[in-house]
């Protein structure tokens, strides 16, 4: 029996347990690939012998960390972005802070896709100190009723929190009870922040709930021209791309309706733009609903996009259409790419994003002739859920575009980025998620925040990304100026370190020296402006 994704459990199995995910590592991209042993692990994923649980990828772990990101945030940015659903955060009010960020994202996403712009619908159960002692089942029931009375949604998602996880709230029995009462899916999503070391488990948690309670089982019809595109809120680049193969797009999860989520089982295939995001849902749709996942390199750069389109055409039986399209696209795009290459000659870039996405972006940068000798990913999945080597995105990058000499896994740790940037001195950064660009800026390095995650996808992605890079290189004037006028919050001792992981390797460097300094030394105050 091949190892299947388990949809019987209410909670998703965290990434580190399923895939062996790590959040700190240092070396080059070939070493990381070798140590990841994708193929061996993949055999395990498929139920063959493989390396069992023994091929652990060594992970660095030090005493110092800066605030990261949690799984519940990813639930907000997925389940919270379903157009006719409501998300309930069963949590103290602090988790509700996410409503502000994900509302900004939701409103911009709606505008980008041409929908009516309106507020996100997330309700927080606002747990208090006494709820930690006595539990808060009635508050959850009340908020579910409020969600129903206020919005008459097509589905209600309920996200757990660190607090409800620790006090052991039985969310599932309440969602079961309410689902029966209201006659719509009421879906519990287990996404306690402390439960997984990496926030991408939050993607899986959302997808797990949708697979269990929303996707139509045994659909009456098949839509042979419909393709599930697993994405976030990015601009609509897949519709024009897939139109050439006579295929229609079903965007999920963000900005989808509940019906669009339900019809995923009727589609002819599933694709993604990033295996970090799509791995779980795409694999489960194939294993449990018979919708084939397009297992191919991701659609970045000429080689990646060609291979991705060919595989999509094969799966959807459109082989005859694909070759002329690829040829036409090459002819259309190549002159533009050549122009950009000239403009970008001698420029060096650095990627700091999620895992598979980074692999794709580096491919595009290398197509544009940009040097990339350093990058970081927030985490690393040594294998994806299907276990199929055709999805080995890091392997594909190494093999077709060459290795990245300084490759780091660093979970949004700004203090480490300083050393990475000193080492390779890039001209610009590509980033997703907040937190790293502010430091780069203070070092005089501009960054392109890729809020629209589709910017680099496909043939046009090369042009879009190239132009974006030229634009941000022009911003350098601002960053150079600010560099001269700010002080970094790190001590000289740290700024002198060449190895960003020195504390993980030598924890003994943290002694009480630093504490003693305060009692013995005349310190110069850092904070006084006045």
């Amino acid at each position, binding site marked *: 029996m091949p190892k299947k994704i388990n949809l019987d459990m209410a909670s998703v199995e965290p990434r580190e347990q399923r895939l062996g995910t790590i959040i700190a590592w240092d070396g080059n991209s070939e070493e990381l690939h070798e140590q990841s042993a994708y193929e061996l692990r993949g055999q395990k994923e498929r139920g063959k012998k493989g390396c069992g649980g023994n091929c652990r990828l060594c992970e660095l772990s030090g*005493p*110092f*960390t*800066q*605030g*990261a*990101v*949690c799984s519940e*945030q990813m639930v907000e940015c997925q389940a919270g972005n379903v157009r006719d659903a409501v998300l309930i955060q069963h949590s*103290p009010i*602090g*988790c*509700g*802070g*996410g*409503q*502000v*960020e994900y*509302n*900004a994202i939701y409103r911009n996403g709606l505008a980008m896709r041409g929908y009516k712009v309106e*507020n996100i619908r997330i*309700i*927080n159960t*606002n747990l208090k100190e006494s709820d*930690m002692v006595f539990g808060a089942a009635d508050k959850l*029931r*009340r*908020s579910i*009723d*409020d969600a129903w009375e206020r919005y008459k949604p097509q589905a209600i998602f309920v996200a757990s929190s*660190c*607090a409800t996880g*620790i006090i052991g709230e039985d969310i599932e029995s309440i969602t079961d009870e309410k689902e029966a009462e209201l006659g719509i899916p009421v879906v519990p999503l287990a996404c306690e*922040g*402390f439960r997984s*070391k990496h*926030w991408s488990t939050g993607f899986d948690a959302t997808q797990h709930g949708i697979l269990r309670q929303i996707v139509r089982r045994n659909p009456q019809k098949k839509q042979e021209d419909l393709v599930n595109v697993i994405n976030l809120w990015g601009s609509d680049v897949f519709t024009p791309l897939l139109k050439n193969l006579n295929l229609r797009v079903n965007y999920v999860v963000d900005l989808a309706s509940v019906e669009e989520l339900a019809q995923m089982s009727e589609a002819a295939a599933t694709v993604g733009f990033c295996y970090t995001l799509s791995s779980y849902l795409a694999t489960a749709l194939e294993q449990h609903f018979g919708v084939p996942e397009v297992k191919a390199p991701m659609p970045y750069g000429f080689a990646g996009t060609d291979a991705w389109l060919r595989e999509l055409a094969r799966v959807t039986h459109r082989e005859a259409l694909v070759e002329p399209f690829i040829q036409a696209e090459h002819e259309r795009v190549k002159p533009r790419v050549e122009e950009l290459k000239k403009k970008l000659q001698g420029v060096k870039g650095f990627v700091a994003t999620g895992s598979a996405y980074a692999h794709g972006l580096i491919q595009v940068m290398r197509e544009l002739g940009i040097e990339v000798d350093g990058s970081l990913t927030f985490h690393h999945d040594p294998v994806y859920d299907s276990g199929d080597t055709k999805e080995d995105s890091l392997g594909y990058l190494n093999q077709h575009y060459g290795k990245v000499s300084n490759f780091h896994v660093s979970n*949004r740790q700004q203090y480490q980025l300083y050393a990475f940037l000193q080492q390779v001195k890039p001209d610009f950064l590509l980033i997703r998620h*907040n*937190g790293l660009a*502010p*430091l780069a800026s203070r070092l005089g390095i501009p960054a392109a925040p890729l809020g629209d995650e589709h910017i680099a996808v496909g043939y046009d992605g090369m042009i879009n990304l190239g132009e974006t890079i030229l634009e941000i290189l022009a911003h350098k004037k601002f960053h150079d100026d600010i560099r001269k006028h700010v002080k970094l*919050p*790190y001590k000289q*001792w*740290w700024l002198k370190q060449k190895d960003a992981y020195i504390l993980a390797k030598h924890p003994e460097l*943290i*002694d*009480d020296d*630093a*504490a*003693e*300094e*305060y009692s013995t030394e005349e310190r110069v*105050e*850092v*904070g*006084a*402006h*006045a």
Partner: protein
Amino acid sequence: MPKTKKDKCKQTNSINQVRYGCALGALHSVTAIPGAMPITHCGPGCVDKQYMSLAFYNGYQGGGYAGGAVTPSSNLQEKDVVFGGAKHLDQLIAASLKIMEADLFVVLNGCIPEIVGDDIGAVVARYQKKGVPIVSAETGGFKGNNFTGHEIVTEAIIEQYVDKFAPDKTTKKKGLINVWAELPFQNTFWRGDLAELKRILEGAGWQVNILFGYGSAGVKEWLTIPNAEFNLVVGPWLGLKTAKLLEKKYNQPYLHLPILPIGAKQVGDFLRSIAAFAKENEVKTEAFIKREEKEYYYYLEYFTDFYAEYWWGLPASYAVASDATYNLALNKFLVNQLGLIPAKQIITDNTPEKYREAIREEYKHLADDVAAEVEFIEDGYLVTQTIKQGEYGHKPPIIFGTTWERDITKELNGHIVEVSYPVSYDVVINKTYIGYRGALTLLEKIFTTAISKSA
């Protein structure tokens, strides 16, 4: 039906469209003090959530020296939950002292350590004994919002740092005052507002410990808190608790002025009240008011043509949905300076019950001939419903609110001025809406918004 109750405003426990952070969000009160650095002991997403909501998608204020992705955090994991996280915190503090440059460290915890019972005070005490300027503040997220957290943090710094390190705690310096006003970062315009507040107070002859923001001398300014002649609490309630603590601790009286002053009338009353309370700086106060009013009315005179004869209709009525401080301040200004008509007033900061009656009283005499009702609602869904019920006459109203009010403003065909957290559609650097100068900026903002419909 579940056994939860609705309050007078039909509120359940549900909070749609949050309008404040959690107690841990007060890590921003630390980053607002030049030279201070928070160290957070909480889940992996807590700092990011509070930062992205309070300091990013709220005027794009930014993290600065110690906020955003700079802030050290233990990013607690399952093992910390099972075995306790005190040792983890100890390591994080030791490493932070080695890596981060700061004059004062403030350790704040989130929900997880509070529930599993990590004794952060004991961990921090070890460093305090060594003379490290470090304090601990128990800000578990379910303990209250960031207003509560702000008071917890402020008092922790006073009790554990100021009291220990201040070179002189008994001498009172004539004319020196500590100012407790807006909540940094939660109030989107706090930086510009505090700068203007300091400017007008200094203009009237006072020496000012503004304590937060650019105008503060940072951590060393905090060490002079005990030397102030008195504490000035500006706003309906925030800071009163701290002022009472200081009264007991350092024998300092306090003056509570509920109205954050906007415009010449309010600023004049404000400065005269302070001079009268202290029986000091009366002459300087009058001279300053005279000078400033000359300038203020110079500009207002030119504005008069527009306000008197703009053809295409200006709004007449308004609603405010904001924290208590801005709500009352705006109402005073809009009624007294512009003669606008108050329709709906909603305070959204979960003002402690004991202060609410006094605030209601303030609205009963916004002017000699103008009174309004104020409601206390935190749930954004009900805020929208309440605004919807307003009587705005035959013209669309101005809604002073948050980004959440954009949808209802469109529905009412009105005009929105974002004045309260979250302000996601304004980029704010040092803009102020208070004092003399801020009042003029506010006029520009209101009427630029109002006349832009035909643009």
